């Protein structure tokens, strides 16, 4: 087990390196940089840009250096906890990001919990009542969840949340708690606002999870040991819960790796729509204004969150089912 964990941790290093390179490549792709955009904007407004100051800034942030040097500086900076400087906010990136990273984290974790809690009973029902009306209906709703663009779902839900429950539109907490320290009231307020994004982001993941769990459980239910158990007179509930269900639980853990990127993607667009104080909105603005270090750091955060999530799910899976680790070695 220790070797496996060490191996996985070691693999993370090149992974994050490749990701950081891709990220830097992408945020460098737009022609020009923040400063040229700034100059043009100032010119368009009829103001005279302070060229000396801009040249100074250019030098300060190393924007005049070649790509590789800039990249190396950025990566080494990140390793030392310095994520660069946000031009737009005129603050170090870590100060801009601050709470947002944790809020993103909370939303993602809550979404995955939501996916589990909802898909679990539905999948069991669907599998045990295969081809019944309930199964067909639930499958159809699941497909509908997969097919509806979640930003639209977010809009509609915000509208109805406001109509029916009086929850104010957007945000992840009451306005009075914004910027305040963590307290019980703030926590409750976050909970009150959290459910909309969680439901919206979780819908498609839930649909996918239901389908996979249902298929797994159906496979398991057709196996001989189930027939044997039934023949020996095991009560149906026990026959379902004790073995087949446990066997089909693997995707619950294993799929985090697949679902987490989806959840984080969904969180980005939904947070733009709902103007959540998570990373989505800020990433969007940073991308548009070519605030490259901010955008890059956000992308890195998201990637890091995903990689860690996948790692955790793999470790949990390996702990739960030793065969998986063996299988992984056998294919080599």
């Amino acid at each position: 087990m220790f070797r496996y964990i060490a191996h996985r941790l070691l693999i993370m290093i090149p992974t994050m390196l490749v990701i950081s390179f891709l990220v830097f490549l992408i945020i460098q792709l737009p022609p020009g940089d923040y400063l040229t955009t700034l100059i043009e904007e100032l010119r368009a407004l009829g103001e005279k840009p302070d060229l000396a100051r801009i040249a100074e800034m250019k030098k300060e942030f190393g924007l005049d250096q070649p790509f590789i040097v800039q990249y190396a500086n950025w990566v080494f900076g990140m390793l030392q906890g310095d994520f660069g400087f946000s031009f737009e906010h005129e603050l170090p990136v870590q100060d801009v990001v601050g709470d947002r990273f944790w809020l993103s984290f909370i939303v993602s974790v809550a979404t995955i919990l939501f996916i589990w809690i909802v898909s679990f009973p539905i999948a069991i029902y669907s599998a045990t009542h295969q081809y019944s009306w309930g199964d067909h209906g639930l499958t159809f709703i699941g497909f509908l969840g997969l097919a509806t663009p979640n930003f639209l779902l977010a809009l509609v839900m915000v509208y109805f949340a406001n109509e029916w429950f009086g929850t104010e539109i957007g945000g992840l907490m009451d306005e009075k708690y914004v910027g305040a320290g963590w307290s019980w009231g703030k926590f409750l307020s976050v909970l009150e606002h959290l459910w909309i994004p969680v439901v919206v982001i979780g819908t498609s993941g839930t649909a996918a999870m239901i389908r996979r769990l249902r298929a797994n459980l159906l496979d398991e239910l057709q196996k001989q040991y189930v027939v044997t158990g039934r023949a020996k007179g095991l009560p149906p509930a026990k026959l379902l819960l004790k073995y087949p269900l446990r066997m089909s639980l693997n995707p619950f853990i294993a799929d985090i790796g697949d679902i987490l990127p989806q959840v984080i993607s969904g969180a980005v667009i939904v947070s733009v729509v709902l103007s959540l104080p998570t990373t989505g909105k800020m990433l969007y603005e940073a991308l548009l204004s070519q605030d490259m270090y901010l955008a890059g750091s956000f992308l890195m955060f998201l990637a890091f969150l995903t990689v860690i999530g996948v790692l955790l799910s793999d470790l949990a899976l390996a702990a739960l089912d030793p065969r998986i680790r063996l299988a992984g070695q056998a294919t080599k």
Partner: protein
Amino acid sequence: MSNSKDNQPPQAPEAETGAETGRAGDDGRGMASEPMKHYVSDAPFDPYTVETLTPEQERYYLAGQWKLMWWKLKRHKLAVASGIILLVMYLSIIFSEMIAPYNMLNRDIKHIYAPPQGIHFVHDGKFVGPFTYALKYRLNPQTLKREYVEDRTKISRVRFFCSGQSYEWLGLIKMNFHLVCPGNGGTMFLLGTDRMGRDMLSRIVIGARISLTIGLIGVSISFLLGIVIGGIAGYYGGWVDNIIQRLIEIMRSFPVLPLWMALAAALPVTWSPLLIYFGITMILGLLDWTGLARAVRSKLLALREEDFATAAQLMGAKPKRIIGRHLLPSFMSHLIASATLAIPTMILGETALSFLGLGLRPPLTSWGVLLAEAQNINVVALYPWLMLPVVPVVITVLAFNFLGDGLRDAADPYK
């Protein structure tokens, strides 16, 4: 000679063997009252009788893989229905401008944010055929909402196969033929109008052209990349395979949408809408090949060990021929099924990007661009019909999913 009912002992060599077995049977029974009647079949001996097939069996066993797939797919009702819906939709994009009752860009400033108009048949207790009532406009002073009421006196009959607003068919030929047009002097906004008084139905019909093709082109790109990269990984194996596998893992572990956003934001603003369109399809395709590459690789690895691959190898076929001629066709069906399942992601991706304003931009019309106008919460409250472009999105995505499911089931016809 071939008369099998003839029981005469013939002179054929079979006669002797037949007689012998007859005798042996007699001995085994011990005391038989009378020797069993001598019987020899004079039918020519055909060792393959067991293997002769009925015509139906023959049809089944001789059918090619694609034919079997087709038969199996036909049994999947939902997949067939979805396929038909998709076929109709894709055919419609050739004739979008004719199907749309209005020119997509036509602005009716008297009918801004008009709600969907109903088609009526009976006026004053008389059957008139399909017609619409005129709309009367009033600004609600409290909500500032534009409200329209039907003017029950003015009717305008819907015309069919008519000449209406002119357009350029496929951007080339100037025409004014429509399948359906509003009556002379009347309006027919079946799905309402947007903030510039443009007919939503026409915009949705024409927006289908971009929304539907973007998925196809994007999937073609990812298909090409997937086959080439997956093929290289599966064929060469070793360290090439290892590197490609790691790369795929990394790309799969990255949330796609932020990457799409970053790439889309990187498209120069100065590009023409058409270039942007191709840029977006490239972006969608470039990040999607990983799933296909993985499928290609694993299939290739498995099939490489099959007997027919070995046989081809022994007969001296070159690797290129083995892959192209023997290996690829045998899992092409799987690939097509996975490609079908990949299209919805792209359609939704385009929709999301355009919704955010990072994708296609207004002179181009896609469902995502249309939905971007529904971004405001007021729209949901006041003008909900602006969200209607989501309906074709959902239908298309559902149809592709069902069709892909059916194809995937049918892809293995020998099971």
